[in-house]
C-alpha cells in the first residue's frame, strides 16, 4: 500500500516536471518566433535601401581571409576554388588547406593555378598538425590564392587553425571547400561588423598609484562573429561552383534537413541575434574577428562541436576581460552545403553533433548559471542545457513513461490525445512560421509547389524525422559517456557522399 503512494508521488512529480518543461519549451519557441520576426523586419527595412556595392569601391573596407579546408575533394576542387576567387569583395584572400588528402586534390590545384612552393614565414599562433609546404601562384591573376599543405589532423578544426595562422587580414571567413557561397556573402557579412562603433577606449577608475595615470580600457561593443543562413544544396542545379537554380531537396531525408535548417537559422538564430544571445555560429559559414579567435585559442581539434566550442570560448574571453561583444546573424541564405543523403551518413553526423553538445556542456559547465558570464551564463547556456541538451533525454523518458501508463492501463486516452494533438499542431505552426519568415526574407524556390512541398514536411516531422534525431543524439551522449573512440576518422567530412556535382 505504502509503496503505491510513493510511486504515485514520483509519478505526479514527473508529470509535473515534464509539464512545466514542455510548457516553457513551447513558450521559448513562441518568443523566438516573435523576436526573429522583429529582427527580420528590421533587416528587411535596412536591406531595402542598403547599398552593399558601396563597400566595393572603398579603400576603407577591412580585409577578409577566406579559409576553406579540403580533404580528398579532387573531383570538385578546381571549380570550388574558382568560385571562391570570384566572390565580390575589394580586399580578400583565399586560403585552401589541403589536410593531407590522399587523392590528387593538391596536384590539381598546383597545376591549374600555376602554384609554386614559397618560403613562407608561418607563425604558429594556434597549435596544429605540422604544415608541410605553402604554395602561391606565379600567375598574377591568382595572387589572392594560397594553398597550405599540412599533415592530416583528422579534423576540420585542426586544418582551420593552420589557415588562421597564415591569414593576413583581421577577419576570417570559415567555410568548407564543398560549400557553395553566394557571391555577395562577404559584403553582407562584414556589414554587421561595420555597424558597431569603431574601436575606442575610456579611462577607468582612480589614477594608478604606480604610473600616475588612469588606466585605459576598451570601451566599444565589438562584433566578434557573424553568421548567415545555410541551406541544403542536394537538389540545386550547380554549374562549376555556381548555383543556377535553387530547389528543395527531392529526397525526403535532405528535405527534412532543409526544413530544419530554415527553422534553426531564420527563426532560431535570428531570434537570438536580436537579443545578442547567439549560441553558435555554424561551422559551414561564419565570419570571425581573428584577434579574438586567436586569443580564445582557436578551434579545439579534440572537440566534436568545434564551431560552438570556439564561439563559447570567444564569448568567455570577452567576458573574462570585461569587454562588450556581440554576435550577429543575417537572415539571407549565403551558403549551400551538401546534406547527408542517406541514413548511414546522417546518423553519423547527428551522433557526432550529440556527442559534441555533451562535450561542450561538460567542458564549459562552470559557465552555466554563472552570473559572471552575463548573458552567456544566464541565457545561452541554460537554454542549451535545458532545451537542446536535455530535450532528447526528457523526451525519451516521456515516451517510456507513456508506454508504461499505457501498458498498466492508467492512461486517460481523451486527455492524452488532446495533448498530443496540441503538441503536434504547435510544432507544425512553428515550422510553418519559419518557412514564412524565410519567404519574407527572400522568395526562394521557383514555384509555390516547391514551397508547399517543404511546408508539408512539417506534418511528417514529428513521426519520422524527429524520433531519428532524438535517437541519434542519445547515441551521441552514450558514446560520450562511454568515451568510445570515434572510429570514422576523417569520414565526418568526407562522409557527405562526394558525388560529382551535377552539371
Amino acid at each position, binding site marked *: 500500500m505504502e509503496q503505491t503512494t510513493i510511486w504515485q508521488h514520483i509519478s505526479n512529480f514527473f508529470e509535473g516536471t515534464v509539464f512545466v518543461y514542455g510548457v516553457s519549451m513551447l513558450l521559448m519557441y513562441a518568443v523566438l518566433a516573435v523576436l526573429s520576426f522583429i529582427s527580420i523586419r528590421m533587416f528587411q527595412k535596412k536591406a531595402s*535601401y542598403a*547599398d552593399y556595392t558601396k563597400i566595393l569601391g572603398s579603400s*576603407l573596407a577591412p580585409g577578409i581571409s577566406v579559409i576553406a579546408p579540403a580533404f580528398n575533394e579532387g573531383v570538385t576542387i578546381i571549380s570550388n576554388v574558382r568560385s571562391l576567387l570570384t566572390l565580390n569583395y575589394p580586399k580578400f584572400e583565399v586560403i585552401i588547406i589541403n589536410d593531407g588528402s590522399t587523392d590528387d586534390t593538391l596536384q590539381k590545384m598546383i597545376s591549374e593555378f600555376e602554384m609554386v612552393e614559397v618560403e613562407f*614565414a608561418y607563425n604558429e599562433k594556434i597549435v596544429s598538425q605540422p604544415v608541410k609546404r605553402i604554395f602561391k601562384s606565379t600567375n598574377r591573376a591568382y595572387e589572392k590564392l594560397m594553398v597550405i599543405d599540412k599533415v592530416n589532423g583528422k579534423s576540420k578544426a585542426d586544418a582551420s587553425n593552420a589557415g588562421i595562422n597564415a591569414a*593576413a587580414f583581421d577577419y576570417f571567413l570559415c567555410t568548407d571547400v564543398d560549400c557553395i557561397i553566394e557571391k555577395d556573402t562577404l559584403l553582407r557579412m562584414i556589414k554587421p561588423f561595420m555597424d558597431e562603433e*569603431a574601436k575606442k*577606449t575610456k579611462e577607468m577608475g582612480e589614477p594608478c598609484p604606480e604610473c600616475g595615470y588612469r588606466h585605459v580600457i576598451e570601451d566599444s561593443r565589438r562584433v566578434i562573429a557573424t553568421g548567415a543562413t545555410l541551406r541544403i544544396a542536394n537538389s540545386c542545379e550547380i554549374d562549376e561552383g555556381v548555383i543556377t537554380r535553387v530547389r528543395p531537396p527531392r529526397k525526403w531525408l535532405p528535405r527534412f534537413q532543409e526544413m530544419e535548417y530554415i527553422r534553426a537559422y531564420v527563426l532560431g538564430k535570428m531570434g537570438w541575434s536580436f537579443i545578442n544571445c547567439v549560441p553558435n555560429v555554424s561551422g559551414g559559414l561564419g565570419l570571425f574577428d581573428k584577434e579574438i579567435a586567436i586569443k580564445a585559442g582557436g578551434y579545439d581539434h579534440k572537440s566534436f562541436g568545434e564551431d560552438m566550442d570556439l564561439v563559447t570560448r570567444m564569448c568567455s574571453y570577452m567576458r573574462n576581460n570585461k569587454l562588450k561583444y556581440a554576435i550577429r546573424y543575417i537572415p539571407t541564405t549565403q551558403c549551400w552545403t551538401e546534406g547527408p543523403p542517406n541514413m548511414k551518413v546522417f546518423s553519423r553526423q547527428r551522433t557526432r553533433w550529440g556527442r559534441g553538445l555533451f562535450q561542450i556542456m561538460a567542458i564549459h559547465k562552470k559557465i552555466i548559471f554563472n552570473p559572471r558570464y552575463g548573458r552567456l551564463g544566464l541565457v545561452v547556456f541554460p537554454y542549451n542545457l535545458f532545451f537542446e541538451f536535455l530535450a532528447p533525454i526528457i523526451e525519451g523518458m516521456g515516451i517510456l513513461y507513456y508506454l508504461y501508463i499505457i501498458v498498466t492501463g492508467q492512461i486517460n486516452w481523451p486527455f492524452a490525445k488532446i495533448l498530443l494533438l496540441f503538441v503536434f499542431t504547435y510544432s507544425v505552426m512553428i515550422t510553418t512560421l519559419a518557412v*514564412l519568415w524565410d519567404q519574407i526574407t527572400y522568395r526562394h524556390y521557383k514555384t509555390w509547389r516547391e514551397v508547399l512541398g517543404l511546408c508539408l514536411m512539417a506534418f511528417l516531422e514529428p513521426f519520422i524525422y524527429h524520433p531519428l534525431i532524438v535517437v541519434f543524439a542519445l547515441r551521441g551522449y552514450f558514446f560520450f559517456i562511454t568515451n568510445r573512440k570515434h572510429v570514422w576518422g576523417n569520414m565526418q567530412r568526407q562522409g557527405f557522399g562526394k558525388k560529382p556535382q551535377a552539371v
Partner: protein
Amino acid sequence: MLLLEAFFAPFFRRYFYYFDSYPLVIQIAIFLTVVAIVSTVIAYASILYRRYRGSRHDKKIARINPLLDEILTESIILNDDLAEGKPVEEIPLPLEKFDRPRFKTPFARQAIIERLIHYRKNFSGDIGLLLRKLYIELGLEKESFGKLKSFKWDRKVKSLIELTAMDMSIADVNILPLTNSKNRELRAEARHAYIKLSKNEPFKFFDVVSEPLLMWDQLELFKIITTTKDISIPNFARWVTYSSNKSVVAFCLKLIVHYNQQEAVPSIIKLLDNKDHYLRSNAINALGKLKADEAEDKLVQIYSSQPLDCQLEILKAIGRMGTGKNLTFLRQEFLRSSDFDIRKNAAKSIISHKQHSEEMLGELLDTATAENKLILKHCMNPLIKY
C-alpha cells in the same frame, strides 16, 4: 489561475458541452491547439499571397524595364545632341514617350526612379546629367520629396537616398532636423545627404556630432566626400586638433592622408601624446602614409613605451618614410624582439628601403637565425603580398 479559468471556460462552454469538466491544463491545450491551427492556416495563406504578389511585381517590372531601357538608350545614352556636344540644359527630352498610362502609375514611377539611379551608378558625365534632367522633367522628384514627408523612417531614408543619387538640393529646414533624428539610420543618411547636397558649410556637422561615427558611416562619408564634385575641401587638421569626438578625429586622419594635407602634420604629431592607443596608432599610420619624416625621430623616441599595435605602426611608418635614418633601429628591433609580428614588420620596413638597405639585408641574410632568415625571405618574395 482562477482568472484564466474564468476567462476560458465560458468561451468554450458554448462549443463543448462537457468542456467545464476538463482540467485547466486540457482547456488551455485545446485553446492553444485552435490558435496553432489558425496561425498555421494564416501562415500558409501569407506564403501563397506573398509569392503571388512577388511574382506579379516581377512580371510588372519585366514589362516596364525593357520599354524603359529602350527609351533611355535611344534618347539619353545615344542622344545625338549629346554626341554633338550641345550643353545638357539645351537638349530637348522626348517626354512624350513617357506619356502613356503604363508609366503613370505610382508603381511605374518608382520603377523609373530606380532604373534611373541604376543608370547613374554606371554612367556619370553628360549622360548622368541628362538622366538627372529627365528625372526632373518627369516630375519624379515630387515622388522622392513626398516620401520625405512620410512618418515611416525607412521611407524617409529611401527618399534621401534617391535625392542624393540624383543630386537634388534639399532645403536646410527640411534636412537639418533629420540630422538629429532619434533613429540612427535616418540620422546617418541625413548627414550624408547634408554633406553631399549642402552648398554652404557641408562639414558643419563635424563640429557638432557627439556620438561616434560607425565604420559604415565612415565608409559612406569617405565615398561621398571624395567623389562629390565641387565640394570645397577644408583643412581637416582643424578637427584633429579641436574635436573631442575620437571617431571624427580618426576619420579626419584618413581624409588628410587621402588629400595628402601636409599642413596637418604638426597637429597629428600632437596626437602622439594622446592617451587613447587606438588614436595614437591611427596618427602614426597617417604620419607614415604622409611620409612626414619630421616625426620620425619622435616615433623612434616613444617606441619603447608603446603598446604592440602602436609599435607595429611605428615600424611600418619608418618603412613608408624610407629616409634610411633609422635603419639601424629597424635592424635592432628585428634582431632583438621575440615577437613575430614585430620582426616581420621590421623586416618589411628594412626591405622597403630598397637600395638604402641592400647591404644590411645581405648581412642579415648571412647571419640571422633560421627563423629570421625565413621572415626576410617571406618579405622579399614578390609572390607573397602580406
